[in-house]
């Protein structure tokens, strides 16, 4: 199988407005690079700013794979790990993609180290939407439906619907291309709708009355 050429980013950014998108990404990358450099020099406030900017992304990436109760602790783990390895980061402008890879790896590691009986499901996740009497359990059931989507879609949908990030923000934070985020959101929503509507007596996601 032939490999895809490395210019896929360019191919995906040929539409109107791609220039400003590229400039915006470049400026964010440059700001990240400055913060990473400052953090390497011992500036904890700079690392704090990186945390502020990326905590939601890390939280979303982890939430796509590990139980809700574990996510906050793992977010902390991911940033501590990143801090300890910061000196090894060569492309400082790609801090987001690097951090996302650490978060995904930490989530995989969580499952490797868990005993089979601990590789659970959230206590609310097995509830059927049809039996949900309150919004909390309905939300848990929808989250569970998202987590059962193909890997390509669940992470992007969680960043959008749970963490409240926009598509361009997801692309900037994770290092994915705009085109990929857009496709993942679009197709992920299609699959989510199909899954939720296939559950008998489902009352979600019905349209909210404006």
């Amino acid at each position, binding site marked *: 199988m032939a490999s895809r050429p490395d210019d896929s980013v360019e191919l995906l950014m040929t539409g109107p407005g791609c220039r400003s998108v590229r400039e915006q990404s470049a400026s964010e990358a440059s700001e990240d690079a400055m913060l990473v450099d400052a953090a390497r020099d011992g500036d904890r406030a700079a690392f704090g700013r990186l945390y502020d900017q990326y905590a939601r992304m890390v939280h979303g990436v982890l939430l796509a794979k590990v139980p809700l109760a574990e996510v906050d602790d793992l977010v902390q783990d991911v940033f501590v790990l990143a801090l300890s390895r910061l000196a090894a980061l060569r492309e400082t402008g790609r801090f987001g993609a690097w951090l996302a890879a650490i978060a995904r*790896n930490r989530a995989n590691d969580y499952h490797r180290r868990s005993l089979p009986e601990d590789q659970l499901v959230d206590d609310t996740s097995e509830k059927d939407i049809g039996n949900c009497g309150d919004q909390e359990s309905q939300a848990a059931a929808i989250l569970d439906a998202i987590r059962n989507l193909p890997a390509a879609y669940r992470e992007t949908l969680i960043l959008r619907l749970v963490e409240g990030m926009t598509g361009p923000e997801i692309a900037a934070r994770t290092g994915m291309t705009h085109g990929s985020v857009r496709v993942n959101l679009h197709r992920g929503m299609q699959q989510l709708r199909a899954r939720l509507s296939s559950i008998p007596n489902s009352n979600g996601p019905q349209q909210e009355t404006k």
Partner: protein
Amino acid sequence: MDTGNNQTGSKPLARNDKYLWDGSGDPDPEIRKLERLLGRFRHHGPVAVFPKIVPDRRWQFLRWRMRRFPVLATAAAVVAIAAVTFLAYERKPAVTVVGWDVSRLAGTPRIGRNTISGKETSRLRIGQILETDQQSRASLRAKDTGHIEVEQSTRLRLMTMGAGLNRIALDRGTIHVHIWAPPGRFVVDTPSAVTVDLGCAYTLQVDDSGAGIVRTSLGWVGFKLNDHESFIPAGAACATRPKVGPGTPYFEDASATFRAALARFDFEDSTPQQRTDDLAILLAASRQRDALTLWHLLTRAEEGQRVLVYERLRGLAPPPAGVTKEGILRLDQPTLDLWWNELGFDDISVWRHWERSWSGPGKPVLAK
């Protein structure tokens, strides 16, 4: 995660997609409801507490002192030059000892000529060979990379080790690998393919002829030789042969008929008619789970056979929107990737993102 779907990426957005994309345009009531319900899971974690960052400030302090005392600075410079000159003539440059910690599990494994016995821990350095005989087994550990158990009658070499890439060559034998380094950072060369960790645990065997097999128990593994790629998720296996490269991955619970036909299709020097017959057998014996194998066969089947594979795969795992028959038959990479992502194994963009020149055999490189 890049799905690689260029066509959809440039499609004009519908009104609701615009809201989904960046929150602009008319709010989509359905999405707003999802946002409201799911917002309760949003990150509201406590303010993070990080350990103090301690950069190396010694040289800055020294510079301040030197500005204050110019005579001292000159004297220090003379002493420093003399010391460097002396060391350059008298001593060989120091080499940082990087490597994997090796401990004995059974018998007496060897690193080069040195045997490892008792509870002692040795270090496998770059360029060195670890060998076990019929009675011995060993364990390798690298803090930031992972853990490897080395079975009997195995010979492996450490090729490179650094922040970006860890590379081992397995000449023969069996290793059980658990990796916690980021995907794409740990690579094992075998005589007929390169194994790339994509966040996983797996077992790799190589026999004396150079033929090998990888069995994935967690995550997934990439198997590559030049442009020949195989992706092996948990529960699946993939064989490789010298001069041929990786075969087609398959789930080990597939029927014996399916596996036998696949082995003949991949590695036997068959006539075109025999290959067509073998393909027909394995297509007929394929289950939904065998979509893994069929997806790989799209790129391995002859042009005339590819349509048969497409039709069977379509029956087992309907292609998503954006995947056309024409795109598949001409082996359009983004289209193939889009269908792969639909099969639910893992996101192929992880591989595309980390892909680099792993194909060539590694050469020992001393770490600086």
